[in-house]
């Protein structure tokens, strides 16, 4: 069985602290740390759990700049069998449609046949949740979103539990299939210590080049060495996946950002009341006077 996990490296928008706020109340994006998109870890966990139960291989693929190799190393340490970095300057600026085309193209050209594609429900930077269904459409396979439990897999079918907020569904779907996984599905496993010692040395081609430039060493030597030790992260660009250049990146993206406004915290006429009985009584009196209680 082959399970492909789609992952994304994202700015850590959840931990916006005082340091990343500029004096004018806007965000200093460069100061945000880059992390493994949290729900993609839930998707990876579901994939690894399925592998534990039914065997097979787990392949993690991400599209992003060279530093996105960080999350691929993390995926290897947590138990992924193979990781792939989709990286090419021409992929940059992609909206969800162009991103889904690029990922679907990578899968069609190199990863067929697969049984399951597992994705996080959504990424914390864009919060769109659009790429997974668009990848499924391009691959011509069904999708099941909001999967909190993979109950059973047999005879080319999967039984899944979906959590839709107010509604819960048990569905049966034919493989190959794409699923999306929310954070409530499971608790992602931690990197295994032995794997950590090995796979922290994994490098992608871009990183090799950067290191080689720094050390003025021969790339080929190091690359051959890494390949031999199973520490080389496969890296594919537009050519490797035979991408139609008009359908990737900014040029392949119908939606454009017209403008971006910063959210500036509104100054309100804030009045403080002391936390003692007298202050609170005064506040309650005022709220009643203003008919705030209806």
């Amino acid at each position, binding site marked *: 069985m082959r399970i492909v996990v789609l992952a994304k490296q994202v700015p850590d928008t959840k931990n916006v602290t005082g340091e990343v706020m500029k004096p004018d109340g806007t965000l200093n994006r460069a100061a945000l740390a880059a992390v493994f998109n949290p729900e993609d870890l839930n998707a990876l966990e579901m994939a690894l759990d399925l592998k534990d139960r039914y065997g097979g291989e787990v392949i993690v693929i991400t599209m992003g700049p060279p530093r996105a190799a960080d999350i691929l190393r993390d995926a290897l340490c947590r138990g992924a069998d193979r990781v792939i970095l989709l990286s090419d300057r021409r992929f940059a600026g992609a909206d969800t449609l162009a991103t889904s085309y690029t990922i679907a193209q990578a899968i069609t050209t190199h990863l067929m046949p697969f049984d399951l594609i597992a994705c996080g429900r959504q990424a914390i930077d864009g919060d769109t949740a659009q790429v997974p269904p668009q990848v499924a459409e391009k691959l011509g396979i069904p999708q099941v979103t909001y999967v909190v439990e993979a109950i059973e897999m047999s005879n080319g079918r999967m039984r899944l539990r979906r959590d839709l907020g107010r509604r819960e569904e048990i569905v049966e779907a034919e493989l190959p299939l794409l699923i999306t996984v929310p954070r409530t599905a499971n608790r992602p496993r931690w990197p295994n210590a032995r794997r950590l010692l090995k796979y922290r040395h994994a490098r992608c081609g871009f990183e090799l080049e950067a290191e080689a430039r720094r050390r003025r060493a021969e790339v080929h030597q190091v690359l051959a060495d890494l390949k031999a030790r199973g520490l080389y992260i496969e890296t594919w660009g537009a050519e490797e996946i035979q991408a139609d250049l008009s359908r990737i990146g900014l040029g392949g993206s119908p939606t454009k950002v017209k403008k971006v406004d910063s959210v500036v915290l509104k100054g309100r006429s804030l009045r403080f*009341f002391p936390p003692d009985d007298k202050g609170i009584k005064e506040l309650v009196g005022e709220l009643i006077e203003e008919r705030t209680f209806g």
Partner: protein
Amino acid sequence: MAQHGEVWTFAEIEDGQIAGVSLELLGKGRELARALGVPLSSVLIGHRIRSLADRLFAHGADIVYGADHECLAEYTTLPYARVLTNLIRERRPEIVLYGATPLGRDLAPRVASALKTGLTADCTDLQIGSYESGGRVYENKLLQIRPAWGGNIIATIVSPDHLPEMATVREGVMRVPEPVEGRNGTYVEVPVNPDPADFKVRILERRTHPRRVDLRSAAIIVAGGYGMGSKENFGLIHELAGVLGAAVGASRAAVDAGFIHADHQIGQTGTTVRPKLYIACGISGAVQHRAGMEESAKILAINIDPEAPIFSVAHYGIVGDVREVIPRLIKALRGKL
């Protein structure tokens, strides 16, 4: 002036009724249709749906495209996506709007991918306006406005060269237009030819839980955060809400800590609310939380940290320990109300 296509909304059915967000779309849809000088239409997919179309007419739809078939009685992605994709190809609407519900966010990207058109997720506002790029001016485009980067920026997205322009719209942000009982419209029956290849996902079981709390229609909300410290202390929130006849809300941190069920979560990933009074207790006020409550008419914040961001959106503030302040507040209210 160039001729425009219609403005469409996708009408979602929830528990046999038109979903609230689908009625909200009709208010905004009417504004957009008026700006473009085109009819406002809704697409209704299901089984035995004719009577539901009248609700859409009453709330402002001029045309309802109804796809009625027993194999469409329950939502599954592929059959619904096929009906909608074919209908869009045939009728060429200018704009298609969906509620950003689990269903809308499952369906819309699938349709966008098949049509190779743009889609913007979870919009909080929509306008008609112009867009300039490379010396060219595009008139009468849909400006799709949404928060991004965890609510730290507001982006305006356009899709200048592709039709239809499509967006999902956040629930609870737009107002439901007043219904006009007996208002009529044109019902267009859409032929359905199901493809057996689309039935690859079968629903074996479906359970619906009633909503634990109705935050959106509450006049007063008492919300607790991680600063409440424990599930036991969170009892103070329930007690204060009881005195005020208020609904109980929570920040994501309080939900994650297990103080209360996720149905009570307010903020970007929870419910968006705008009550007359919002009392935030032990909530620091991360941007994701503020995004879901800052439109409240009056906000009272109680927090031990005078620097907490919640005070930047509050009208009244009390700096102090919630475990001492809330009991005093309850005592003061019991004496007055």
